[in-house]
Structure formats: C-alpha cells, structure tokens
C-alpha cells in the first residue's frame, strides 16, 4: 500500500477510536508509527510531542499535521489532519441533528441533569490534576491566584473580560520576568 494511503487510514482509525482525549492518543500514535511501522524514530517522536503540547490547538490535530509533514510533506500533513478530523465531524454532526429530540424524552432529560453535575466534577478534577503537575514556585502561584481571582470576580460581577486577555497577559508576564532576569544577570557581571 502506498505510504500516503496508509497514513490517511491510520489517522482515520485514530480519529475514530480515541476516547479519553489527547494523551490516550499519544500512546496509540507511538505504537503505530514508532513501534509497528518504524516510520519515525523514537527521539523525533518525543520532539513532536513537546511541540504538539506547547502549541495551541488540539493535540490530535497538532500531531497529525506534524507526522503527516515528516512522512509525506505538505500533502501528507493535509491528509493526516483531514483523516483525524473526519470521524469526529461525522459522528457529532449526526448527534447534533437528534440531540434535542433525544433530550425531550423525560428520563433522558433527568439523566442529563445528573450528567451535568458529572461534567462539573470532570472539569474540576482535570483542573486539580493539572494543578498537581505544575511546578510549585512563586511565579506560578502568583499567576494562578491572580487569574482565578480575576475570573471569578468577572463571572460573579458580570464584568465582560475575555479570558483571551488572561492568556496573553500571562504570556507577556512570562516574557517580562525572563527579560528582567536576563538584565539582572548582565548587571551582576
């Protein structure tokens, strides 16, 4: 089979069967491309994971674009990205047509009232888990507490302040702290 066709089918499969988010997918990708097909070296794969995690956008799309490009150039990256998105797109589009009718059923409506509580639990536990992975230092603590306070304030007092600004300001603070440190080191010398 031609490599680009295999690339497309592999990502189609990954798009259709990865439940549980990005990290479950990384393991699958490694198994397919590094161990089974040996198309990518282990080191290169690890570099890819770092890039995919640090850039915006879903991990699945990021790694599909990257692996596709490495194997078959720009056509490969377009094929892999398309393949990984198609299953989600079809499944969710079909669900969107029927979800409202489905929710009109009384027991389904009650079930979803329970599930809404579960989603709050899922988001909170994801946040707590990420909090555990964050390095404990003054910088992180200050940003963390400031952003939490600002967002809760805006939400409770109905001030419209997009979290886009939180992301950009925090990034700018990161860069400023880095520059200040650098200037400080130069002055010492």
């Amino acid at each position, binding site marked *: 089979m031609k490599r680009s066709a295999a690339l497309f089918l592999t990502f189609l499969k990954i798009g259709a069967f990865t439940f549980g988010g990005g990290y479950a997918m990384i393991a699958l990708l490694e198994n397919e491309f590094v161990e089974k097909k040996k198309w990518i070296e282990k080191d290169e794969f690890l570099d890819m994971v770092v890039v995919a995690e640090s850039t915006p956008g*879903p991990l699945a799309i990021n790694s599909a674009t990257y692996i596709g490009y490495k194997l078959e150039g720009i056509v490969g990256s377009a094929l892999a990205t398309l393949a990984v998105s198609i299953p989600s797109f079809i499944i969710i589009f079909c669900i969107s047509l029927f979800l409202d009718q489905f929710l009109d059923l009384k027991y389904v409506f009650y079930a979803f009232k329970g599930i809404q509580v579960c989603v709050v639990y899922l988001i909170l536990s994801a946040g707590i888990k990420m909090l555990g992975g964050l390095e404990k230092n003054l910088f992180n603590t200050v940003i963390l507490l400031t952003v939490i306070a600002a967002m809760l304030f805006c*939400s409770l007092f109905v001030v419209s302040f997009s979290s886009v600004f939180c992301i950009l300001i925090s990034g700018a603070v990161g860069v400023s702290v880095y520059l200040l440190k650098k200037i400080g080191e130069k002055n010492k010398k």
Partner: protein
Amino acid sequence: MIYLKLFLTFLMIGSLSFGGGYGMISLVRETVISNGWLTEDEFLNFIAVSESTPGPLAVNIATFVGSSQGGILGSLFATLGVILPSFVIILLIAAVLKNFMKYNGVNAFLMGVRPCIVAMILATAVSMALSALLGISSVTDSIVPDIRSAVLFAVLWILHFAYKKAKCSAPPPILMILLSGVLGAVIFRFEI
C-alpha cells in the same frame, strides 16, 4: 454573516487554546454563551456528549455549535476555523522554525501561559459548580441550593477517591458519565 462569524470565532479559539481539551473549556464557554449559541445547560450536556464520543473536544464542539447555528455549512466553517491555526503553526514549525522550542522567548511565554490555563480551568469549574449546585451565577442571585445535585456531586467525589485508592488512577470519564446518567434518571424523577 453567520458562516464568517463562526469561522472567525473558532479561528480565535483554535489559535489560543493551549493545554489540550480542558484548556479550551473556559474560552469556548464564554464565547458560546455570550453569543447566545448555547445555554449553560446545553453547554454542559454537550461536554458530556463530547467526552463520550471519540475525537478532540475542539473539533467536536466546533462541529456541534456550527451545526446548531448554520447547518452543515456552519459546522464545516466552524471546524475548519478551529483546525486551521494548528495546521499552519505546526507546518511552520516542522518546515521552517525547526528550533522553535529552543527559543528562550517562546519558553518564557509558555512559562506564563501554563499556570494561567490551570487557573482558567479551576475558575471555570468553580463558577459552574456555584451555578449548578447553589444556583448562583452572579452576586445579585440569592442562594438556591439544589440538594440532589449537591448530593450527586459529593457521591462522585467519594467514588473518585475510592477508585483512585484501589486502582491508583482516576476513574475513566465515560464510566462516571454513565453512572451519573443512571443516578440522575433515578433521583431527579421524584419531586422533593
């Protein structure tokens, strides 16, 4: 025009959603609620659907919101919008900026963004909990506790810790969703 608006909105979400699926929840929630595309309840329902189906949350939610606002074309535009920034950024890094991750400026920016994303997820979860369990969405609301939701929330956390103790990992989301669906159908059936 709704197609252009969907495309641009999801383009913005795609370019700024650091930190994987949950990292984009705050941005998506703000956007879809302030545009009147989904209510808070509909948003929560959809997150559950997305967690129970394969594929990235970003693509799922773009397809869903696009479809509800503009049919199949709407969902195509929204999905294209959310994918495009990833595609372009990764191509640039893979092809041109091979040492992208080695620039100090990039790492300094990410150092600032990382705690911010965690904070956004936690703040979003807390304001969702306040609204779902206590009926408070702004300071002017009086507290109307929803006892059944609060009990269910407590049960889920007890199970979470019990499972973690037994298996050393958090319970799979789909299991917790199914369980709360069943419990929900039982406890919300009866008026108190």
